[in-house]
């Protein structure tokens, strides 16, 4: 029932409060005496001369996308893990449920080997 999510709800509220509280405390308690020098951007004593945003190397993106794909794989493993015992105890799906997951993993291992061999996992 929905009531069983109540602890989650409380947890989220506490989490939010925990994040906001230090910032708010700082805002309220700390002294604020800004002047133009304090507010100016500081970059090793120079005037800031370029945008803080810069191009990232495409390799970050490659690592991130490979991470997502294997992250998704793990998301599929979770339901399997929760009913693994049940699979093992049911005659009709005992081997089927096991082999199925192995095939799933094997297909992704092909992708892993491919990415590895192509050097996508090296940073040089």
């Amino acid at each position: 029932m929905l009531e069983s999510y109540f602890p989650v709800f409380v947890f989220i509220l506490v989490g939010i409060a925990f994040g906001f509280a230090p910032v708010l405390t700082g805002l309220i308690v700390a002294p604020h005496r800004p002047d133009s020098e304090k507010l100016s951007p500081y970059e090793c004593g120079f005037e800031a001369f370029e945008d803080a945003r810069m191009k990232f190397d495409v390799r970050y993106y490659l690592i991130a996308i490979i991470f997502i794909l294997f992250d998704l794989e793990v998301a599929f493993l979770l339901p399997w893990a929760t009913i693994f015992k049940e699979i093992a105890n049911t005659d009709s799906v005992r081997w089927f449920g096991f082999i199925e997951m192995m095939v799933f993993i094997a297909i992704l291992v092909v992708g892993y080997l491919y990415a590895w061999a192509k050097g996508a996992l090296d940073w040089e």
Partner: protein
Amino acid sequence: MEFKTFVFYFLSAILVFAALRVITSRNPVHAALFLVLAFFTASGVWLLLQAEFLAMALVLVYVGAVMVLFLFVVMMLDINLDRLREGFWGYLPMGAIIALLMVGEMGLVLGGNYLGLFESSVRQAGADESNVQAIGRLMFTEYVYPFELASVILLVGIVAAVALTQREKRKNKSVNPSQQVFVKARDRVRVLQMPAEKRD
């Protein structure tokens, strides 16, 4: 109004607001962060429907992973913010008209039937049944075929990502310490014998 209905409208309002900010905020990083908020509230709506596994997966996969990718992409592109937004107001009237039309049509079609949808033949899960296990039972029996296809799609994703971004080894000037310590004197200095030349 029931508390559940109130929560639904509350979350939906945040969701719509966040989605609107995704396409209207001037800063792409802010847009990406609003998308995080949108995903997060969407997972809240799913929790309301008692689909806790899906809600969890949404947070883990989308908020945790896909958004990281989004931020990387946003930062990877050299975006000229002002130029990016130039066309927006020009397209707004047309887009707004189409959006309103679609909302109107949906209202007309669904109108009275809307509540009927929830009482349709879609089976409701038992209240105390674990969602993750129920999904697992279906996924590893009846849904084998889509399940394996999903892994093939993930594989194609890996192949496509690597094939499209992986460049040949670039020439960089980094040194490899393990090779460095094995260096011998003769690798460093080469003594050449040259006959002296007379200069005139």
